[in-house]
C-alpha cells in the first residue's frame, strides 16, 4: 500500500500543473466513457472541447455561459477559503432573480434608467437574505450550514415555481408558467463593438462578472479583510487571538457570496430571458462549486476556470445537438474533474510513498 507524508513546503510546480493535469485526465476519461457508450470518441471530444472554440460567436457564447459561473464562483472562493460551506448558491441565485424580478414587474411602465441599478441592488439583497439565515444559524447555534443552505435551495426553487404559476403569472401567457416581459429598461443590453456590431449574445453582464472577480481578488490579496478570510480557514484560533471577530467575518462572507449569487440570477434573467419562468438556472449554483475548486480558491483564476467549465457546458449542448449524447454527461465530466482536482490537492500537501513491506507500517 501507499502512505502519505506531509510536505514541508507546497511546491509552485504542483500549484500550476494540477489543474492542467486534471483537465487532461478528465479528457482521457471522457475518451473511455464515450467509447463505452458507443459514440465515436474522437468526434464526441471534438464537439465537446474544440467546436465551442471554432468561431468568434461561439467564443462569445462561452463568455455568456461563464458569466453567472464567474460571479457565483468568486463568491464561493471567499467562503471556501474560510472553510465556510455555502452549498446553496443555486437558491440564492433564484431569490436574487425573484427580488429583482419583483421590482421589474412592478415598474413595468417605467422608462427610468435607474431601474436596472435598483434591480441589481435588490437581487444582491435577495441572495444575501437567503444566505443570511444559514449564516445566523451557524454562528448562533452551530447548525450545519451545508444542509441548511441546500434545503433552502429546494425551498427557493419551489417558491419561484409558485410565483410564476400563481400570483405573478402573466394574463397573456396562455396558461404557461411565465411572468410578463420585463420593461426594456430592465434588460441588460448586448455589447456593441464599433465596426463589428454585436457578437452573438455577448452582454455587459460579462464585463461586470470579470470586474467582480478582479475586485474580489484585490480584496483577498491586498486587504485586511482578505487576510482575515485566510486566517479563519487556516487557523481559527490565531484569528481569535489576533482580536478579529470570527462571527462577523462569517456573516460578511455569507452575505457577499449570497448577494453575488443573487446578482448572477438577476443578470442571467435580464440579459438572456427577459421574464421569470420556473427554471431560470441550469445548476449554475452547483457548477460554480467546481469552478471555485478548479481556480484553486483564487478569485482571479475563477475567470479562467469559469470559462473552462463553460466550455464543458457549451460543449455538452453541441454534442447533444450533433451526436445526440445526453446532456447529463457534462455532470459526469464535472464530477470526475472535481475528483482529480481534489486528488491533486493531496499531492501538493503530501508526498506519496510506497511501502512494499506491509509489516513495517505497524512498527513506526
Amino acid at each position, binding site marked *: 500500500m*501507499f*502512505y*502519505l*507524508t*506531509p510536505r514541508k513546503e507546497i511546491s509552485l510546480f504542483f500549484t500550476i500543473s494540477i489543474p492542467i493535469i486534471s483537465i487532461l485526465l478528465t479528457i482521457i476519461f471522457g475518451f473511455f466513457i464515450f467509447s463505452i*457508450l458507443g459514440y465515436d470518441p474522437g468526434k464526441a471530444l471534438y464537439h465537446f472541447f474544440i467546436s465551442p472554440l471554432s468561431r468568434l460567436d461561439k467564443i462569445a457564447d462561452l463568455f455568456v455561459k461563464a458569466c453567472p459561473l464567474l460571479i457565483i464562483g468568486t463568491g464561493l472562493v471567499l467562503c471556501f477559503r474560510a472553510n465556510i*460551506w455555502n*452549498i446553496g448558491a443555486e437558491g440564492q441565485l433564484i431569490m436574487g432573480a425573484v427580488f429583482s424580478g419583483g421590482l421589474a414587474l412592478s415598474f413595468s411602465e417605467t422608462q427610468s434608467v435607474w431601474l436596472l441599478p435598483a434591480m441589481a441592488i435588490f437581487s444582491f439583497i435577495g441572495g444575501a437574505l437567503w444566505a443570511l439565515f444559514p449564516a445566523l*444559524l451557524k454562528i448562533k*447555534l*452551530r*447548525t*450545519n450550514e*451545508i*444542509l*441548511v443552505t*441546500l*434545503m*433552502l435551495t*429546494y*425551498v427557493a426553487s*419551489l*417558491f419561484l*415555481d*409558485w410565483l410564476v*404559476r*400563481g400570483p405573478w403569472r402573466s394574463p397573456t401567457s396562455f396558461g404557461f408558467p411565465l411572468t410578463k416581459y420585463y420593461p426594456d429598461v430592465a434588460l441588460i443590453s448586448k455589447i456593441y463593438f464599433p465596426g463589428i456590431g454585436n457578437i452573438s449574445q455577448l452582454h455587459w453582464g460579462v464585463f461586470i462578472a470579470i470586474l467582480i472577480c478582479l475586485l474580489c481578488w484585490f480584496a483577498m490579496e491586498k486587504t485586511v479583510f482578505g487576510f482575515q478570510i485566510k486566517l479563519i480557514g487556516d487557523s481559527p484560533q490565531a484569528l481569535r487571538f489576533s482580536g478579529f471577530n470570527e462571527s462577523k467575518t462569517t456573516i460578511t462572507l455569507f452575505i457577499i457570496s449570497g448577494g453575488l449569487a443573487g446578482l448572477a440570477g438577476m443578470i442571467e434573467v435580464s440579459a438572456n430571458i427577459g421574464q421569470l419562468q420556473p427554471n431560470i438556472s441550469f445548476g449554475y449554483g*452547483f457548477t460554480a*462549486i*467546481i469552478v471555485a*475548486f478548479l481556480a484553486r480558491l483564487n478569485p482571479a483564476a475563477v475567470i479562467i476556470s469559469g470559462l473552462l467549465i463553460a466550455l464543458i457546458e457549451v460543449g455538452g449542448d453541441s454534442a447533444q445537438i450533433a451526436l445526440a449524447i*445526453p446532456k*447529463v*454527461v*457534462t*455532470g*459526469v*465530466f*464535472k*464530477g*470526475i474533474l*472535481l*475528483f482529480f482536482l*481534489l*486528488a491533486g*490537492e*493531496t499531492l501538493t500537501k*503530501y508526498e506519496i*510513498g510506497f*511501502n512494499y513491506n506491509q509489516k*513495517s*507500517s*505497524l512498527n*513506526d
Partner: protein
Amino acid sequence: MIDALVLTILMTSVPLILAATGELVVERSGVLNLGLEGMMLMGAVSAFALTYVSGSLLVGLLAGVISGCLTAAIFGFFVLGLATNQVATGLALTIFGTGLSGLIGSDFVGKAIEGLPTVFPETLSNMSFIGVFFALDAIAYLSVFIALLVWIFLFKSKYGLVLRACGISHNSAHSLGYKVLTVRWCSILFGGMMAGLGGAYLPLMLTPHWSEGMTSGRGWIALALVVFASWMPSRIIYGAILFGAITIMQLAGQARGWTIPPQFLSSLPYIATIFVLVLISSKGTAKYLAPSDLTRPFISSK
C-alpha cells in the same frame, strides 16, 4: 383512506431509513460522506435497469446494492487513500452520481416495471388498524431489521466499539493497534450498500419508473436525519417516519382539495429538515454527540 395514507408514509420512510442507517455507521467511524444523493441515484438507476432487462427484482435489488457499494468505493479511494477533503469529495460524488445515473438511465425513461410484492397474505393486511403493518414488502421489514442489527453491532459488540473509537479518536484507536483505515473502508462500503438499496427502493417500489434525479433531495434529508437521530440507530426509524408523513402531506392535501398551494406542501420536508436541525443544535446536543474526529482525515505515519 387512512390505511392507504399510513401505508404510503411507511413506504416513503423506507429509503430514508436505509440510507440514513448506512450513513450513521459511516459517520460513527469518523467519515462524512455527503455523496448519499449520488449513491442513491446510482443504486436507483442500476436497480431499475437490471430489473427491466432481466425481469427479476432480486437481480435488480442486488445491482442497486452493488452499484451503491462501488460508488462508495470511489469516495473511499479519495478520502481514505488520498486524504482529500471529505466535504468536497462528497459533493463531487453527488455531482458525478447524478450525471452518470442520468446517462445510464436515459434509455430507460418512460419504461415501467412491476414493483415488489407484499410479504404477507391479503387476509392479514386487510385487518383494520394493524393490517397496514402487514401490507409492506420485504425491503421495508428488512430496513427496520438492519437498523436494529446496526444498533446491536455498534453498542453490543466489540467491533462496534472499535468502529466508534475510530470516530471519536483515530489516533487512540491507531495506537491500540486497530486499523483505522480498514474500519473506515468497511463502514464506507456498508454505507454505500445501504444507500444503493435505499435508492433501489424508489424505482422498484415507490414509483415504478425511472426519472432523472428521482431522489429529489432524499439523500440530503437522510443526512439531516442522522443529525436528527443524534447518531443513534433507533431514532432514525421514527425520524424517517416523521419525514415520510411530512412528504405525504402534499399528496393528501391534493387529494382533499386543500387550498394551500402544492409548492408550499412540497417544500415542507425541506423546511422541516431545517427546523429539526435548528432544534437539535439549539439543544446543543449535536455538538457533544457527533463523533469528534468526524471529517478529520487519518494520516498514518509510515
